[in-house]
């Protein structure tokens, strides 16, 4: 059984390496991903952000503008997920400790 596990891992690793050979180089300005217009000749969102982020929000850090302004709904959802995780921990793990007939918290 162990041999089969290692065989599956080796085959999967070889498949991933073969797939990653087809990717463009990192930071390649002439790849299809980084062009001003995408393959279907529609304008790319990333180039709009790079051109207009400083002008729109008067903020130097482009990542902050994208996370908080252009993609505000995403960050709101992320926030709600964290809050829900905290509430679930609170509801599952909290125990009413009774000391001398009184609740501690």
């Amino acid at each position, binding site marked *: 059984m162990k041999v089969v596990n290692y065989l599956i891992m080796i085959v999967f690793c070889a498949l991933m390496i073969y797939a990653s050979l087809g990717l463009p180089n990192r930071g390649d300005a002439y790849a299809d991903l980084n062009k001003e217009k995408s393959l279907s000749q529609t304008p790319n969102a990333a180039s709009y952000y790079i051109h207009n982020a400083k002008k729109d*929000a008067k*903020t130097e850090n482009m990542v902050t503008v994208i996370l908080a302004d252009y993609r505000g709904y995403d960050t709101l959802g992320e926030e709600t997920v964290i809050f829900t995780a905290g509430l679930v921990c609170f509801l599952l793990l909290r125990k009413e400790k009774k000391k001398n007939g009184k609740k501690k*918290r």
Partner: protein
Amino acid sequence: MERKKDNPIVSLVSRTVSPFIMLFALYVIFHGHYSPGGGFQGGTMLAAAFILIRLSLGMEISQLQFKSRWATPLGSAGVLIYFGTGLVALLFGGNFLDYGFIPIAEAVAERRSIGILCIEIGVAIAVMAIIVSIYDDLLEGSSDD
């Protein structure tokens, strides 16, 4: 986790280092417009400073700094700050979370910058309170005693 003995070096070092961690966390939050960082990272660093005090000095002393029952209201307040910023923009005629309509400053770009700052503060408060709350619940709230 019962503590065996108070170590003076650990308590002194943690009490000295913790305010500087908080100061750097505030720098990360409020300087997130110009350098890497933002609400999430700064809030997590604030929570790390509180957790350092909680680890080294124990639960009873650290209640003086940040009470356990404040955690859930503060987390709700952080999410509500975020949501309220979007709602103010909605009430003044824009779309939800469109900070250009918040009536604070003159120019639209200035308004957007202030709106981003508001929601970063909300995110930081929520993340800080929730991480401290998870720590408290894991440590105190489980069943065996």
